[in-house]
């Protein structure tokens, strides 16, 4: 091995070594993947480590050493003044995640060819808020929340300034054009949209669900031979009431005060979203003032802002660590015109089920 060949520096254990290059460059002593070639004195990672993170020096984004400094600085900010020494490889250990409050990592891998990969990694994030609330964590914002904010900010700015997408290597799309990313907003315009949305919800004409009390007190009967109901249909499932149903529950009939009868299993889900009779709109509970449809279709031209997509909260991620977070973030882009969204809206049942609020427009 020639002595002129540059050494590499491991940002995880601060070792200077020659990394193992297969499959990706990783530290020969700790197996960490956050390694950097020591190429020139001007860009010496060891010096950076000693001097600490200059966060406000106007780091340029989108490439060059300044960009990396910025990331490394953030890494330190998240994990403490100095990265904790780790002797084992693999994902952050629980103690690390717990003690630091975030267990958050930022990393840059540079391959010999000059391309770079940026990692933003954190623990599964379901506990982030809880930790923050209990006062145990040092950072009110941590983990994936911070990661999302950074990603949105960085990709957005990089795009605007015409830099190459620093996350291109990971297949990320550009930043959100309207400044919204999942549940978070990053500019004035997006905030305005949210405020408009909230104001419109205030005087909404959305149906009000029936209360549990109202629902339990409804008239119920089990079908019997000779019942006049047997000649009638359930207006929800469009089936005639019958004594010969496979499911005995289908013989429990609820009659609303307006005398319209339904299978119990057909009317209850509806009343949970709207306390009205599906047939005549009789109000079991007072409904917001609402003009009835006048003519074939009432409606018109002023849509509220599109809804923030809530199906992609990071804490619902089944694979909360590492790259899973990236894909959550990508998926949360509120206004992407990506065609695959068509399928997303169709398939997963839980996404539909989040729309538990009556009226069905907004989750």
């Amino acid at each position, binding site marked *: 091995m020639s002595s002129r060949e540059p050494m590499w520096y491991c940002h995880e254990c601060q070792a200077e070594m020659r990394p193992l290059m297969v499959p990706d460059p990783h530290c020969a002593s700790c197996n960490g993947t956050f390694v950097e070639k020591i190429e020139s004195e001007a860009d010496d990672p060891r010096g950076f480590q000693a001097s600490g993170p200059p966060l406000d020096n106007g780091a340029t984004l989108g490439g060059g050493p300044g960009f990396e400094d910025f990331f490394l600085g953030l890494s330190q900010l998240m994990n403490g003044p100095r990265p904790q020494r780790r002797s084992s490889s693999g994902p952050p250990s629980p103690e690390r995640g717990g003690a630091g409050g975030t267990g958050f990592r930022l990393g840059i891998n540079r391959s010999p060819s000059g391309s770079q990969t940026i990692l933003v990694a954190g623990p599964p994030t379901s506990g982030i808020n809880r930790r923050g609330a209990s006062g145990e964590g040092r950072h009110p914002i941590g983990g994936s929340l911070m990661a999302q904010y950074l990603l949105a900010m960085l990709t957005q700015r990089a795009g605007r300034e015409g830099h190459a997408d620093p996350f291109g290597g990971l297949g990320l799309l550009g930043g959100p054009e*309207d400044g919204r990313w999942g549940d978070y907003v990053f500019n004035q315009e997006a905030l305005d*949209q949210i405020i408009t*949305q909230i104001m*419109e*919800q205030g005087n*909404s*004409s*959305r*149906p009000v669900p029936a209360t549990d009390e109202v629902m339990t007190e409804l008239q119920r009967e089990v079908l019997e031979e000779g019942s006049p109901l047997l000649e009638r249909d359930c*207006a*929800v*499932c*469009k*089936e005639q009431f019958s004594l010969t149903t496979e499911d005995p529950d289908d013989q429990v009939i609820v009659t609303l005060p307006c005398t319209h009868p339904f299978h119990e*299993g*057909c009317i209850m*889900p*509806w009343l949970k*979203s709207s306390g*009205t009779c*599906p*047939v005549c*709109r009789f109000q079991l509970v007072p409904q917001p003032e*609402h*003009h*009835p*449809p*006048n*003519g*074939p*279709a*009432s*409606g*018109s*031209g*002023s*849509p*509220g*802002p*599109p*809804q923030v*997509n809530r199906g992609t909260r990071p804490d619902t991620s089944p694979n909360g660590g590492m790259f899973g977070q990236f894909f959550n973030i990508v998926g949360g882009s*509120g*206004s992407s*015109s990506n065609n695959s*969204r*068509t399928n*997303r*809206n*169709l398939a997963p*049942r839980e996404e*539909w*089920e989040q*729309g538990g609020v009556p*009226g*069905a*427009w*907004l989750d």
Partner: protein
Amino acid sequence: MSVVYSRRLKKELQEIQIEQADPTKRAAGIQLLQADDLKIWFFSIEVLGESLYKNEVFHLMVRFDPEYPFKSPAVQFVVSDKVKPPVHPHVYTNGHICASILGDDWSPTLSVMAICITIQSMLASCKKKELPEGNDDYVRTAPDNPKKTRFVYHDDTV
């Protein structure tokens, strides 16, 4: 709940297919194009007789979720190289339709065919072909699924 969903939709599909086969029962100008499953159906819609949309054919995409019929399906006009949405004050150029029966006025007693007929008559009664106010802004930021838009219904005239 999902039992009602599949039972209802199968029944509706069966009835639509019977109607389509019988010219005397068929709703004129409405045709089922595709219904391979209980998730997404396509219809063609045209307004027969005199209207602003004479000789125009539109395609309607109807998407269901397992909460149907307790929640309305997602209904929009298809926008493609071959078919365009109608120019109508309640139809955005991305195919989204602002109609209260698809939102707050939905009732589980309504059916897919009822929606088609409603939309057909919404076109038939149109007095002036024009785009909705704020079409460009809406189309630029609209979600893929029109059900995620909160429309404000304020015009009962068309």
